[in-house]
């Protein structure tokens, strides 16, 4: 970053420009207009965002309209998900069963990072948490998608920003889908003879519509313990427990007394396939599962395998990297967002 640009950023942000001894610079604009001004400066100086500069949207942490009719909330990019969930619960709404790792993030990090803003819905499908997004594009113009439950108005352009690590633009706010606040939670525990049986029971129950907050899988010498925390409306929880029990018993499992659930520590999380989860159980590794979808699950505490969900990645790690980088070059020809590295 040139001195000219650095000076201009300091003048713009004053106290919200923080330079550390190790050379790291954190820019903390207070609102979208200021963020746009930051972006404009990089563009005017024809410089990409250097690796040592971090754009913090922590100050853009407003919670806007909470609409109980549609079940949506408007939230700024910097709002911590844990705080948002607290606010929503007071209005009888919820973001759904998020993992400790997700709840530790702000909205922008959850949407743009490796979690890609995905939550699981009953039936086991992964679905984007935002119904609509507002983002700043590289030319400073605003990308605004229309809140709609589904659309066939061309490709889903929100997908560029979800998991996009800020390479296509910076999310400034989003309209998020909320569930009704789960009014019931029950824990059920079972013992099954083998990991295969446990995973098959669980996956089938998910496909049937069971909705889990968390599932613990503990392989022991001659059996696997499965403990599931089921959430939802009271009648829904009863249905889900019945379905899960049916699947477990059909595979020769037996009921167990649940162990009181411990508070979940914020351990590193990884997204793993069901195959990989099965291999881990076969090796005797216990697993605490969140976001239990038909595609993948989020495992807390594993240090290898799957996709690490902490921190940020780079486009060089992306699937379909060549095409996505070509799109990034077209969307950001001056490489303001770091370009297509």
């Amino acid at each position: 970053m040139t001195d000219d640009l650095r000076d201009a950023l300091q003048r713009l942000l004053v106290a919200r420009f923080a330079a550390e001894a190790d050379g790291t610079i954190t820019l903390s604009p207070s609102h979208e207009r200021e963020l746009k001004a930051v972006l404009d400066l990089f563009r005017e100086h024809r410089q990409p965002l250097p690796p040592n500069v971090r754009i913090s949207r922590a100050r853009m942490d407003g919670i806007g309209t909470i609409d109980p009719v549609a079940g949506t909330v408007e939230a700024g990019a910097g709002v911590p998900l844990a705080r948002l969930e607290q606010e929503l619960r007071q209005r009888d709404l919820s973001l759904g069963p998020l993992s400790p790792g997700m709840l530790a993030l702000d909205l922008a990090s959850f949407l743009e990072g490796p979690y890609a803003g995905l939550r699981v819905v009953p039936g086991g499908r992964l679905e984007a948490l935002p119904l609509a997004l507002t983002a700043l594009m590289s030319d400073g113009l605003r990308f605004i998608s229309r809140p709609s439950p589904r659309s066939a108005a061309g490709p889903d352009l929100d997908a560029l920003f979800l998991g996009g690590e800020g390479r296509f633009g910076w999310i400034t706010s989003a309209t998020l889908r909320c569930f009704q606040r789960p009014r019931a939670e029950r824990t059920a525990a079972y013992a099954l003879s083998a990991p295969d049986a446990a995973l098959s029971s669980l996956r089938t129950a998910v496909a049937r519509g069971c909705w889990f907050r968390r599932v613990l899988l503990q392989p022991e010498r001659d059996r696997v313990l499965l403990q599931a925390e089921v959430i939802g409306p009271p009648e829904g929880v009863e249905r889900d427990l019945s379905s899960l029990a049916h699947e477990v018993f059909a595979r020769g499992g037996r009921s167990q007394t649940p162990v009181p659930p411990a508070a979940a520590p914020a351990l590193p999380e990884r997204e793993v396939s069901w195959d990989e989860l099965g291999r881990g159980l076969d090796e005797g590794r216990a697993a605490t599962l969140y976001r239990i979808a038909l595609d993948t699950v989020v495992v807390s505490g594993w240090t290898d395998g799957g996709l690490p969900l902490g921190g940020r990645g780079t486009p060089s790690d992306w699937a379909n990297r060549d095409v996505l980088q070509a799109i990034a070059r077209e969307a950001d020809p001056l490489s303001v967002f770091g370009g297509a590295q």
Partner: protein
Amino acid sequence: MSVVPVSAARLPPISGAAHAAAAELGRALKGRISLDEQDRLAYSRDMWPKALLWVREGRIPPPPDAVVWPRDEAEVVEIVRIARAHRIPLIPFGAGSGVCGGVLAVQGGIAVDLKRLERVGRVDPESLTVEAQAGVLGEVLERNLNAQGYTLGHFPSSIYMSTLGGWLAARSAGQLSSLYGKIEDMTVGVRAVLGTGEVVATPQRPRRGPDLAQLLIGSEGTLCLFTAATLRVHPYPEERAFRGLRFRTVAEGVEAMRRLFRAGLRPAVARLYDPFDTALVARSRHKGPATPPSLRGVVRADVLPALTRQLSARTLGRPGWINRAADLFRSCLLVLMFEGEARRTAREEEHARALCLRTGGEDLGEEPARNWYRERYAVSYKMSKVVDNGAFADTMEVAATWDKVLDVYERVRAAVAPVAFVVCHFSHAYQEGCSLYFSFVASGSDDVDQERRYDQLWRTALSAAVSAGATVSHHHGVGLLKQTQLREELGEGRRMLEALKRACDPDGILNPGKLTL
């Protein structure tokens, strides 16, 4: 765009570039190419009602220069290579069931019929996925899955005449989308050939980065040609439960639907017919099916032939009269269907019924819903008969969040009432909102007046819907029909769509003139 008189019995001449490309394509595809007028004519349109009006007037939509029939992905790659070399457009073609003019060859070019890519793989019982090629017809795919003990859960009313690739191109929805989702929800990954000729395959999770599949699905042939997809399947349902309920007003019915979905219930079908649609259903009850799937079914079976015979064109030309008469009706019919695991299905239906009764509903028993299910595909055909009768009909499907649904309904009805007879049903419901499916019937004094009214109708209706907060399409796509409103909806964000286009199709050969590109 030029519309050619059929009476001239002459299609636009085949371009020089097309002739040059045809020779190469013929060699690459071992002769599976046609420049015959009949084939060009057959591939000149889809089921867009405006194109039907043109045909009635003796005109045809702009045809392609040629039609090709690739048999595998390698041949699709070769077609793209040749088209790039000759700078000639390619128009991917499934089964032609689109209703927005998405396949019209507005700049000429080659129609690429993908129906010979029709293989369906074995279901993986562990991951509950199947890979299928893009040209397979919907009904063939579903029957194949049923024979293996599964269902895709995707049942568009066009299922007999639409392909997997067409579904992907238009972000299609089936009648059971509330449970199984739209095609973009059930797609785990896609294979496609970009306009660069590059083959892309989007991997299953876990993976890093944006989901390229969601950027290609809905691109209506402007970014890629789909060749295959990996789809989520479900065990064939053990049981279905049906329920019909009557509500005193649209508002009450919509509120019941909203509460159902907000409560976490997951009916496969929830369709609320507005009062006049409900009244039409009641009129036809003694004749057979009590609950047609949409106005189009009623139009086909009962109403329009009778209207066009018994009412003068002049009456249909003044739809305000009929719309005011429709205001006399009040009550609405809600059709519910649940399916899946037996133990859950019955319980969910019981909860849904109780919730509807608490919201003011009156239980009509199972029969209205069972009738709907029996007749669920009795739509989408014989639209031309409507046109033959001297009128035109069309449908508009938009979507909105629950807080806006009633406003969209009222505004569209008010805006369209002077132009067309209009009814609506609410379906494809989700936790956050639903689709509103409007059906229009109108007439004009002559062909020119009809086309003028048709354009006026769409401008008016979409403008009203969008200004009330709806998206321009829930599942029919954009085509030629909704480009103006799509441009408005995208606003400055259209830059990202243009960036996608330049990256995926730098020569602009894929279905030019669509999606505002």
